[in-house]
């Protein structure tokens, strides 16, 4: 049986579906008996999602947008 450490090392590839089926099966076998790893996998996935949702929406503030527009207009005519 593989241990938690090995599972966590392979987590990235596991979630991307890039492990070979045999290794994937042994990970799943481990998870079935290991609540701490299940919690780890769930929170690992949540972490990515939370960070993405928080950071991806860096909209350009309107003031900056209009300054950038001025800048572009100035340069395209030179």
């Amino acid at each position, binding site marked *: 049986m593989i241990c938690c*450490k090995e599972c966590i090392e392979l987590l990235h590839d596991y979630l991307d579906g890039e492990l070979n089926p045999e290794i994937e099966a042994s990970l799943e076998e481990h998870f079935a008996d290991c609540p701490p790893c299940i919690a780890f996998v769930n929170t690992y996935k949540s972490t990515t999602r939370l*960070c993405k949702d928080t950071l991806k929406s860096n909209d350009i503030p309107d003031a900056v947008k209009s300054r950038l527009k001025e800048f572009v207009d100035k340069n395209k005519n030179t």
Partner: protein
Amino acid sequence: MGFSDPTKDKAIEEQLVKDLQAGEMRSFEQLANLYQKKIYSLSFNLTRNATDSQDVTQEVLLILFRKGHTFQGKSAFSSWVYRITLNASYMKLRSRKREPSVSIDDLLPSFNKAGFQQEKIQDWSESTESLLFDNETREVIQKAVDLLPDKEKVVFILRDVEGLSTEKVGNILELTIPAVKSRLHRARLFLRKKLANYFGEYKTRKESK
């Protein structure tokens, strides 16, 4: 910028780049519209400062404008834009006094000799929804990302936040695919631990009420 079809986007981008290489200045404005949000957003995630990000965006647009015709086309145009944006953002950071970043190894999971997890792992993944738009939560998440060492941070932002492919990130940073994956994994482990401290504590507080 209402494009949605990626192949169409790519075709439009290729045409704009061709025009730019030919010195066609109308395309500059269109490229600026196409890229300025990406440039600003990436820069803001690295510098966490609106003025710096505005400067970076202008600098990058100026480089596109002045040197766009010299673009060789060896790698994707967008990779080139990302690379210039990273360099300009790092220049901004260099001139600023920064808090030393935390050692990532201190925050990686710990195991006993048999390779089993030692800490008690709480599953807080279900209790985060209501907190997501909370200002405190946003701050905690931003701070955690800011604390990542540069090498891991840039991979995390490009791959998980901007949503670029592993290959593309490798191309931009000139890293192998295994190197991209390993840095991304370390970043996620570090952030998971940071968020676990926050959400785990929150969950305990709520349950003990």
